[in-house]
């Protein structure tokens, strides 16, 4: 198992060993591959990294982690989500950097409804050194191809709090459209703030992708 350094040469974990997850896949053959990031199943050994990220004020602020996440609760959550099938209501994958296979976050679906073909998208880049590098857009792109193309999802929804401008811009880049705004939905930093609901249909996704590919080719 390869132990790599943190993003940009920093070791964000301190005493926490960063797991490559290569025990779950042949080297360089992830579950879903992209150019700079790839997606692989989450392992028990990822838990300490997630615990660290989820408890961090800046990250948990918009993820709405109001109560401390313990290593035990994180392990239980992972164990409860481990079997992924059409019986599952949620499905999560770890986001890793292709260079060094370092874990930087996770992406997943929750509240999957198989008869309706709908689910809610969640994405987290926990490693702050990787913020603003387009990792979320790339990870979401690979993941949506999977959700629409393999799982047969018809519509993906996303709920983003209004003050989280970074995530809202990611949603727009991917092609999500605003379906409605829940006024004063969440209590953040002592104030009620709005919650935005975004939608993306499979047809819209395929059209956007083919347009992007045309631009790249020309």
């Amino acid at each position: 198992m390869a132990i790599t350094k943190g993003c940009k040469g920093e070791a964000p974990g301190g005493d926490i060993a960063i797991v490559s997850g290569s025990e779950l896949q042949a080297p360089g053959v992830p579950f879903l591959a992209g150019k700079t990031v790839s997606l692989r199943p989450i392992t028990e050994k990822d838990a300490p990294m997630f615990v660290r990220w989820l408890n961090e004020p800046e990250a948990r602020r918009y993820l709405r982690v109001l109560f401390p996440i313990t290593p035990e609760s994180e392990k239980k959550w992972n164990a409860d989500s481990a079997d992924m099938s059409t019986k599952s209501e949620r499905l999560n994958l770890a986001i890793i950097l292709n260079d060094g296979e370092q874990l930087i976050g996770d992406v997943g679906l929750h509240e999957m409804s198989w008869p309706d073909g709908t689910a809610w998208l969640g994405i987290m880049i926990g490693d702050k050194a990787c913020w603003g590098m387009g990792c979320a857009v790339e990870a979401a792109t690979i993941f949506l191809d999977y959700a629409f193309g393999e799982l047969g999802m018809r519509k993906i929804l996303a709920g983003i709090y209004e003050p989280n401008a970074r995530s809202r811009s990611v949603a727009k880049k991917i092609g999500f459209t605003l379906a409605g705004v829940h006024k004063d939905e969440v209590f953040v930093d002592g104030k009620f703030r709005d919650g935005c609901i975004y939608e993306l249909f499979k047809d819209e996704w395929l059209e956007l992708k083919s347009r992007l590919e045309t631009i790249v080719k020309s």
Partner: protein
Amino acid sequence: MAESGKKSLPIPFLAGPRVSLQPQSETDITVAVPRINDPEVRHYARATYPVTMEARKKQLADVGDISQKSDSIPFAIWLNAEERVIGDCSINNISWTDRNAWVGLGIGDKTMWGQGIAVEAGTLLLDYAFGELNLHKIIAGIFMPNKRSQGAARKGGLECIGILHDHVFVDGHFIDSCIFEMFRDEWLSQKDARGKLLEGILPS
């Protein structure tokens, strides 16, 4: 009067002129289960899968002691004059920190449809949510073709804030879902009018 659903001991937790809301019991479930499996009732109540007595009993047991630890508070809707249960309603997904919750309401007894019963029961539920639980906002999701429930929501003071397109699969089609909201401020400003509405129905 239908015998099914008759109870010897009504517990009007929240009392209105025609209906009251009371804690749900196992007796209520034996009445509710055949109703929710009725195609016409389960249609927009979105009971896609068959509901069993055991599942509902387990659900009730899982709700357990209702307190500020709960994130769901269910009630049976009791028809005062006939002393029987005609439907149910609940406050769900309560967020005590954001002080909001989703509400759901169903009149399972089809003979009681179209009489403004849902509006009255909903009014009691909102009075409880805002007046006792101190919630800031309540939310409801109603499917677009379900005009009856949308009418009840509007009469109760809720407003549509957005539409989730082609959201659920009902009768072979994807249909939209409307999201309704109501704030505590709106409830406060409408409280007098709502009190009069309830009083107007009261027998003198």
